[in-house]
């Protein structure tokens, strides 16, 4: 690739423009030069003033192109279809209350246990694909095998996406600009179509609809969560999504989980809200830094869930009536 002119390089690998842009290299007018020749046009003074490291920029471009090629080349064969946790021990070195636990894609698993019990540690074990080399002694398998080290070290292929209740939008962009920016960083080809899909999905989840020209910082709590979930479901490359509670306001949580599951995600959800915890197929109970047991949601619990959902619908109904300025009545 070092023989190609910059113009040809961009034609072949359009993502090179991101590299040039982030490194503040303006190549306008130099498209016919090779990258090395372009770097040589900087004067000694430029190099010092702008802290330019020519050798490194040259080598890094090559590394960047290879990483991006690899990122684009991820196909379905490599997709994550299951995650297996092999038991380790708790903080007192007692063995965990299970031997091996496999979670398949489109499954929802809830995690319960008091704050500080070891939820973060479990998540970190998964994110790092622990191989009996973390304080819990757990090992993680992907698709039943010892995972590729890329999950540890690649910056664009993280195993776990997170949705937590403290999350906010920091950038002040419109919804359209925001989603486009994310789509571009994921090298999505049809940005407009993807943006449309995300806003439609988000609006199906949100109690109050919003449009593409709304600023993300002006969205209500429910709308923000809806947009974050839709965006993570559709755009995030991470096959595992960890949800740390979803507040029960302004968002249809059941639909949100359905959306994630429909996108082949493995969903782990830390929650003490019974309606959410019981939606899960199984729940992991964490105590003293270890998994003490894994409970399968029973028939009786599913009955309880139905009741909870009815109550939930009742409350949500009241909420929309209030929003619409109506007087509340007990409907049958």
């Amino acid at each position, binding site marked *: 690739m070092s023989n190609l002119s910059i113009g040809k390089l961009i034609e072949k690998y359009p993502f090179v423009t991101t590299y040039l842009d982030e490194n503040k290299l303006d190549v306008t007018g130099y498209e016919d030069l090779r990258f090395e020749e372009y770097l040589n046009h900087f004067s000694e003074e430029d190099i010092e*003033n702008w*802290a330019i490291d020519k050798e490194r920029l040259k080598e890094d471009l090559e590394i960047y192109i290879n990483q991006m090629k690899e990122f684009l080349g991820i196909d379905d064969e490599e997709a994550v279809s299951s995650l297996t946790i092999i038991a380790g021990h708790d903080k007192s070195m007692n063995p965990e209350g299970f031997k091996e636990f496999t979670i398949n894609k489109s499954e929802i698993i809830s995690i319960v246990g008091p704050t500080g019990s070891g939820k973060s540690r479990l998540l970190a074990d998964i*994110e790092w694909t622990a191989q009996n080399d973390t304080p819990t002694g757990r090992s993680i398998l992907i698709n039943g095998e010892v995972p590729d080290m890329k999950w540890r070290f690649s910056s664009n292929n993280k195993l776990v996406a997170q949705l*937590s209740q403290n999350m906010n939008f920091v*950038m002040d962009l419109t919804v359209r600009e925001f989603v486009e*920016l994310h789509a571009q960083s994921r090298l999505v080809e049809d940005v407009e179509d993807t943006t449309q899909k995300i806003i439609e999905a988000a609006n199906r989840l949100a109690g109050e609809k919003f449009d593409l020209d709304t600023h993300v910082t002006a969205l209500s709590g429910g709308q923000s969560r809806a947009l*974050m979930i839709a965006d993570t479901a559709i755009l995030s490359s991470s096959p595992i999504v960890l949800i740390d509670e979803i507040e029960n306001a302004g968002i249809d949580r059941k639909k949100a989980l359905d959306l994630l599951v429909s996108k082949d995600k493995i969903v782990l959800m830390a929650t003490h809200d019974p309606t959410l915890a019981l939606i899960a197929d199984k729940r992991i109970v964490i105590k003293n830094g270890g998994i003490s047991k894994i409970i399968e949601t029973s028939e009786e619990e599913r009955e309880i869930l139905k009741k909870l959902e009815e109550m939930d619908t009742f409350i949500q109904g009241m909420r929309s009536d209030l929003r619409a300025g109506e007087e509340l009545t007990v409907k049958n």
Partner: protein
Amino acid sequence: MNLVVFSGPPSSGKTSIILKIIDALKQREVRVGVVKFDCLYTDDDILYEKAGVPVKKGLSGALCPDHYFASNIEEVVQWGLKLDLDLLITESAGLCNRCSPYIKEIKGVCVIDNLSGINTPKKIGPMLKSADIVVITKGDIVSQAEREVFASKASSVNPRAITMHVNGLTGQGAYELSTLLIDKEKEIESVQGMELRFPMPAALCSYCLGETRIGESYQMGNVRKMDLGDDYE
């Protein structure tokens, strides 16, 4: 002894991350010491003391903290060796986006945070671009989309670094980071003769030498003027 240089803008979470690393390394009975460099003031040394590790602080005062670092690092290393540390961590002041105190053979870690804005990777020079490990903090309070965009931007200015998310509050990721800092093959007895990864900027204008008066006739040495154009006519 292993030496690791931590750098990163103010308030990005360097101290929190180092404290979590200390926690993780203590469990493995690794002896850690910290030297904090700053400009006028720091009370981070008290936090490290509370964590039960040997700590020294160096305040650069009227000098540039990174220059001060370069002129003191050998003595700091000897201090660490005398205490028989397994790992010596230095934490920079992180005041200037132009410089970095990384040394060629020594592991350099840059800590940046998701809240600092999407253009941060563009604004930071060698401090980010020449780090071996880029640690991104405060990921629990921004959206997943911003986490991904931010990480991909950081990675596009430094594609060869390992980019990791570490949470300075819960410590998620700190254990993993700590395992990357201990490296038998990188143990040192001295940094004498080693080289900085990137030269610090040429200084020495009259203001470096204590001039306080404003005006053309007081400006001497390495002076550069802004190009304001002539569009005010």
